[in-house]
């Protein structure tokens, strides 16, 4: 199949690659770029394990083509920590026992990352609604809610200190 050249910025690095037009973004990330954080759980955009951030939006990369990302900025779980310092959502999931098998975690983190930018001080109900596109089979979500609350508080604290 004829390949198409795309240029995508992934975690701050420009990637110029030739891909088959039918290549799913999740396969491009996992197999072409060796970024295996995003996982495939359902192929139908229900489970959210493949969630990444594209141009400021949460996107399920299992139902998105790599060619659709030409010219876009993609952030994956591998790009969350900066200079060896965990992002607040990563810290929150660790401190609040927000993960067990870890398979849904990268998608959860990427969703929480974007959700908290849309809603920096959410209620529990808003967190549950905002995270409902991501399934977890292990935790029962209660500690995921706490993890997001932890991250929200930490991000607000950091913002306050910066201001």
């Amino acid at each position, binding site marked *: 199949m004829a390949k198409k050249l795309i240029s995508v910025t992934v975690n701050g690095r420009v990637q110029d690659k030739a891909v088959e037009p039918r290549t799913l973004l999740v396969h491009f990330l996992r197999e072409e770029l060796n970024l295996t954080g995003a996982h*495939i759980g359902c192929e139908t955009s229900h489970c959210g394990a493949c969630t990444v951030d594209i141009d400021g939006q949460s996107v399920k990369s299992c139902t998105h083509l790599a060619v659709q990302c030409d010219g876009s900025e993609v952030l994956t779980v591998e790009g969350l920590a900066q200079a060896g310092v965990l992002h607040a959502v990563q810290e929150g999931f660790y401190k609040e026992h927000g993960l067990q098998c870890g398979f849904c975690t990268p998608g959860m983190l990427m969703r929480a990352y974007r959700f908290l930018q849309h809603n920096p001080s959410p209620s529990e109900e808003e967190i549950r609604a905002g995270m409902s596109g991501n399934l977890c089979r292990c935790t029962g*979500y209660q500690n995921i*809610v706490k993890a997001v609350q932890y991250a929200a508080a930490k991000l607000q604290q950091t913002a306050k200190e910066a201001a």
Partner: protein
Amino acid sequence: MNAPETKERLAALQGMGDSRLRKEDARFIQGKGNYVDDIKMPEMLHMDIVRSPFAHARIKGIDKTEALKVPGVLAVLTADDLKPFKLHWMPTLAGDVAAVLADEKVHFQMQEVAVVIATDRYAAADGVEAVQVDYEELPVVIDPFEALKPDAPVLREDLAGKTEGAHGKRDHHNHIFTWDAGDKAAADAAFDNAAVTVQQHLYYPRVHPCPLETCGCVASFDPVRGELTTYLTSQAPHVVRTVVSLLSGIPESKIRIVSPDIGGGFGNKVGVYPGYVCAIAATIVLGKPVKWIEDRVENISSTAFARDYHMDGEIAATADGRITGLRVNVVADHGAFDACADPTKFPAGLFHICSGSYDIPAAYAQVKGVYTNKAPGGVAYRCSFRVTEAVYLIERLVDVLAQKMNMDKAEIRAKNFIKKEQFPYTSAFGFEYDSGDYQTALDKVLEAVDYKALRAEQAAKRADPSCPTLMGIGLVSFTEVVGAGPSKMCDILGVGMFDSCEIRVHPTGSAIARMGTISTGQAHATTYAQIIATEIGLPSEVIQVEEGDTSTAPYGLGTYGSRSTPVAGAAIAMASRKIHAKARKIAAHLLEVSENDLDWEIDRFNVKGDPSKHKTMKDICWAAYNNVPPGMEMGLEAVHYYDPPNFTYPFGIYLCVVDIDRGTGETQVRRFYALDDCGTRINPMVIEGQIHGGLTEGYAVAMGQQMPFDAQGNLQGNTLMDYFLPTSVETPHWETDHTVTPSPHHPIGAKGVAESPHVGSIPTFTSAVVDAFAHLGVTDMTMPHTSYRVWQQLVKSGVAL
């Protein structure tokens, strides 16, 4: 002794009882987990599977021609290609055989018919589309009762003339086994003499464990060395190695099975599936690594389901509600091949725990296994073998008895509990319950939720015809049997169900423990280290735990049936104690005193009466490599294979309050209170997490999960659009509580916890939903309690708005 200093030293160990954060998390939160699909090998090929669209059909021909023309496709394998290697059928854990690739006919929809191997996964999928299979449809049997009729179609032609199965006589061509337990005559006598009897038919629907990661493997055969390495989503890698060796003829010493990070198991990853076998066959034939990763539809359709039990239960009781007898009759739909994952001698698992938490003098249960045109399986979905079915049965029956006698659910339970002083208690089915204190736990829950006030509120609502909701209160007092199991009773393929631990302590005071189990999210690397920390006095932070690699770990039977803590956890404690005993000898040598003159204290041996003279475990670690007593071997390590003397019996009291919308049938879980007693608690944070997860899976089963089939055997619901996995929106808020009744026979008193919340919560939800209709004479509603089904009951009972 300086008390604050002691406290600090104890805290520094982060041993048993500490809610230490998880060691596993660092990699998972940074996208650095290593799941099977993350593994890449040089020149790795990809395999995909051609599956049957029909539930029962003869294969008249398979044409590979077009598939082999697809760019990137290297090979297409069918049953005929596997025949020379005798790999087209494989033995199951239940003593039956299962087709690896359909041999002449297919027995269920989505059965594996052929595999395509290609240079990448897209090409393999293209190849699958191009394989032409010519089918001749055969009559389909979906209902196990229909399957047992004399003129029912013969499903398993390969078993023609076989009147004896792995578990005794077969009396019909679709009959697998009939198994029973208990004393029929005694149970019948109890019923003959009973003042009160109740009976209830209960169907426990077919469901699927559906872990978020599907099944898969990367198989790699090195033809020069003759060695096979396979990375595989397995909850029991050693058992897989044994099976692969038996099937392939390759010695176990040349097979390495590795379970890397596993994205949830819940019983789905216990079995050996055709995909694994085909990938292994393909790597042996092609000499290159082969990856196979299931998609979600394949996972739900073809790899092990759970439940599908049609149960008839009866209880006999005295006029004042004391249960005197229990009779159970089950028809079990096992699908096309008997591939239940149970200990060999127990074709219905530990279903005979169905006398529950109650002192029932006479009991009898019979289970009949039947073939149908559905996928094989019958795994323990987050439970010990068939314990979920057993607990559902007895808890529902006790509710039905309470209803008939007009007694309160709590009162009838309390009246029939096995009393604290009766432990160890031998049930009518022969289980020896190790310990329990059900009444204390029940009282604690009833007080915490103010049960009397809830009942008063319910009575007021029932009295008000304009109330827009029906209120239901569910109550369950369950006992599980886990930690399989004593090798005198339990084996898999003849291997006793022990588990193992090897600990090596390093000179500078750190250690590595290698285990026969494999975590699928239970935090073994965190909690196992805590047991060792407490036992030998080294900080858990410097204790590494490794699992899942058969080339480095001692043989173990794996992680399922809540057996990791009861069995492997005991092996850890026993191995640690061997190290501790040697360390004591070294300490005595270093301090120049007798072993008897030493006291152990947290992390050191003190000379009796003079703790200023002591040797810490860290000192001893160093000495073990340069200054041991004369005649002693150097080094500090131990291996222990633990064969448990008995199962463990965790229990719990769960209470649930629901409000059902009379207009829509929607069920709102207002409150769910879960008290669990898992004996000694190793890491309360991890325990609570496990309970949240189990309750949520229980909620999924009770309120939405099912695998419906149409008359042609089409599975109507094999994507996550149709198969219910609750999101954070539906999932209720969980309240947890505990009591601690240690197991007397377990080295650290721990019983296992991860499955109790699944086992216990499912009947609690049903109990609550049915309770909402109890005043209208309803005694049973079949799961899942979806809004539509509940609304149908509202209409039927004349209370729909």
